């Protein structure tokens, strides 16, 4: 089969940014998908409107790479939910991704505000 374009996707989010946000969210402790989506929305002061469904392929990928692990648990209001937690490899990845993100922000900043040099 020819290469297929991914359906859905990160929409407005920069490629890889969603991964970073998910990892960052999980630093605070295990969480299920719904609460991760809400945390990202609230944390970004409602700026980043994640299409919640697009979170799951990202979670699937992160789990496959061994950066997060999952388990079934019970939510605050007594519903079954799948929880994710950060693995040690995930913590290292978060650090690496964070510093790469900072580099990117600085680089874009240099271009946008050359006067401030």
């Amino acid at each position, binding site marked *: *089969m*020819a290469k*297929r374009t*991914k*359906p*859905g996707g990160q929409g407005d989010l920069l490629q890889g940014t969603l991964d970073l946000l998910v990892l960052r969210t999980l630093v605070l402790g295990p969480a*299920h*998908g*719904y*609460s991760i989506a809400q945390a990202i929305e609230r944390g970004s002061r409602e700026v980043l409107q994640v*299409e*919640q*469904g*697009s979170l*799951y*392929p990202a979670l*699937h*990928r992160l789990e*496959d790479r061994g950066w997060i692990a999952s388990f079934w648990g019970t*939510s605050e*209001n007594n*519903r*079954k*939910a*799948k929880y994710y937690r950060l693995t040690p490899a995930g913590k290292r990845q978060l650090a690496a991704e964070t510093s790469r993100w900072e580099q990117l922000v600085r680089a874009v900043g240099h271009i946008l505000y050359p006067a401030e040099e």
Partner: protein
Amino acid sequence: MGWGRYLRRRWWDEERAREIEAHLALATDENLARGMTPEAARAAALRKFGNPARVREEIYFMNSLSWPENALRDLRHGARLLRLNPGFTLVAVLSLSLGIGANAAIFQLLDALRLRSLPVAKPQELAEVRIIGQTSRTGSFNGRYPQLTYAQWEQIREHQEAFSGVLAWSAQRFNLSPGGEERYAQGMFVSGDFFRVLGVTPALGRVLNADEDRRGCGLPGAVISHSFWQREFQGSPTALGSKLLLNGHPVEVIGVTPPNFFGVEVGRTYDVAVPLCAEAVFGGTDSRLDRRQGWWLAALGRLKPGWSPQRAGAHLEAISPAIFEATVPETYRPDDVSKYLGFKLTAVPGGSGFSSLRANSERPLWVLLAITGLVLLIACANLANLLLARASARERELAIRLALGASRGRLVRQLLAESLLLAALGAALGAALAQLLSRFLVASLATQGNQIFLDLDPNWRVFGFIAGLAILTCLLFGLTPALGATRTSPGAALKAGGRGLAGSGGSGLRRLLVVSQVALSLLLLVGALLFVRSFQNLATLDAGFRREGLLAASLDLRRADFPAERLLAVQRDLTERLRALPGVESAAEVAIVPMSGSAWNNNIRIDGSAGQEGSATLSNFNQVGPGYFRTMGTPLLGGRDFDERDAATSPKVAIVNETFSRRFLNGANPVGRRFRIEVGPKETDHLYEIIGLVKDTKYRSLREELTPIAFLAAAQDDEPGRFAQFVLRSPASLGALTAAVKKAVAEVNPAIGIQFQSVQTQIWETLLQERLMAMLSSFFGFLAGLLAMIGLYGVISYAVSRRTNEIGIRMALGADRRVVVRLILREAVALLSVGLAAGILLSLASTKMVSSMLFGLQPYDPVTIGLAVAILAGVGLAASYLPARRAAGVDPMEALRAE
């Protein structure tokens, strides 16, 4: 994603579905808490989530590995196509399995003969001890590998330092029967260390040890092979301690070797092994232990750790002068002695054992492998041709798929999947066929007196070979059509409509394939005709005697205990009795039955007319009784036959053949001339007077040049042996005749052992390899020709179907049928001539390699090549005439309407 997720992707899909459902439930709960109606709450949650099915699909694809899925789908698709074309599938699988099976069978034989090591511990450490060059040795030679004398063996054993252990052995047939017709076991004389050096441990009882191999040991015990144990003792443990009768000497069975141990000779299996020292019991006064000119042993050594065969060889060479100095045969003349002292020992890798079968069959097997390889190549070309035709029929389909965005690689893979299935089916069937074929070949090479034993259990090399062939053939016949079919641009193919592209790349390739098929099959046909005509030349050759109705009877008198002085009288008595048998036309004594493999030669000097001696020349010898030439049907050309005048006490006489007279006596009448046989220092020499001249006969083999032969009188033998051999001419059936002979001999003495051999059968058996070669090469030549003709027929039919339109127009314009036939045949003739011309060149270049296997004709024999060309051209034209006639039968209106 990895295989784990791929194999469990259904589970993962369900897991994600559960998770998404949980997510939606949580979001719905929250919306409810905000006071929405249940429907609105669910709808809002879904809105916020997006499309769950799409998310699941995305994850499902993330979990997919595309190639195994596609490969499986391609294979299924291929299998469906093959099922839809059962005729094509059958032809393809059959021709492939025949090709692969034949190749694998020959390879299996080569593997068993050439590539396998002896079934002993660490065979790579074994090295064979032999004399460099081995030329110009004189003396008597016994066994199949007469490399060393017993005296040399003793010296090597005592003085070598290269091996942690050395062994010597010699093959020997033992007669198991107490009297009457003989029954043989394959025996070995082995040195005491034989089994220890090889690392063979007994399956039952014990093996011989070094202490048992001492001069004067008598017959301390025999070790038997597993198969002999099963055959003679039904595998019973009571075999240990029971007695075997070997040439009339009882010996105790002390042990049985493991099932996989067949000795050190590849191609045979041993039955009984006794120590070397026991040879004295069988040889008696003639024992080879003390005969320094008796060559009968072969030796192997196990290299010390860190020693290579080269180093061992250098060591053996260094100790050679001392060894040969200490073992000079007493009977040697001075010139022989000086040659003997110059001999050098060496060591060569010996892990694959000894094998005369290997030496004799290796070349024919390689030639056969080349032949079967070419047949497989032709079969592949044929399949490629068929697949190309199919691919061009599918041109439109493939073009549409390309236009719809399928990648070329994807289509090629799909087309290859079909070929891979065919190749796999062909290989599986071929592997099974190879088992039958290789066993059939071994069985047809074996004769009553020469059983062949080869370990033919397929091993990883054989399976690897077959798998390699399958992949190679698949690529050969699958790749070109697949690449060709997907090369055309979709637009062009679609525009050309259903007729395909006239003169597109595919049909040029098909012509090339047919031309190479014709060329290769001509080569195979030439080869087949060469082998067939060689065999014919040999089979119809005038050997100088009439082979039909001749029986040879070999008698072993050793156990009859006749006093030496009576032996000649006993032999005369036996001759009389055999002659008197009903149905026997004539009978005579003979020492060496022609073509039996035995030979006897010696240097002679012609007694010069002026008293001075001529120079020494080599002649073959035989010793015969009166009536021998009449019995054989060999005409006496001058002088007289032996008769009762030629007794032990009268002057020695001889009869010579034409070549003898021509070579040594300038072709003048030999009767009355005299010659001397050169003898060693301790033997008495005699002057022989020639009393007769006979027609030339073959001596050792049908293939040899005619040699000079001197026949001596059996009645004048100074030391008559305890073996007597007779030839009888009789029209009676073999069974009746042998029964009568057995009865007559038993009347003289029941302890006399007898062995029978039909002379014609024996000669026939010497031609076994030639006959097999002729048979197999004709079969494969026929097969190759058939395949090439199918290919030619296919290409011409295809051309006709493409030109139907053109033919219709021509006929509408007034062309008659003959013109149309000629039009089509012109193409066939062009293809055939190019193919045949290439084939002739190929034959001239490559048949030289088999020249040593031919007899009575040259590899570039013009008659053979002409015959092969005529056959192929004739059949090829016939194969193309069928489609040409069909083309001429085209109704012009039909053809034009089809446009």
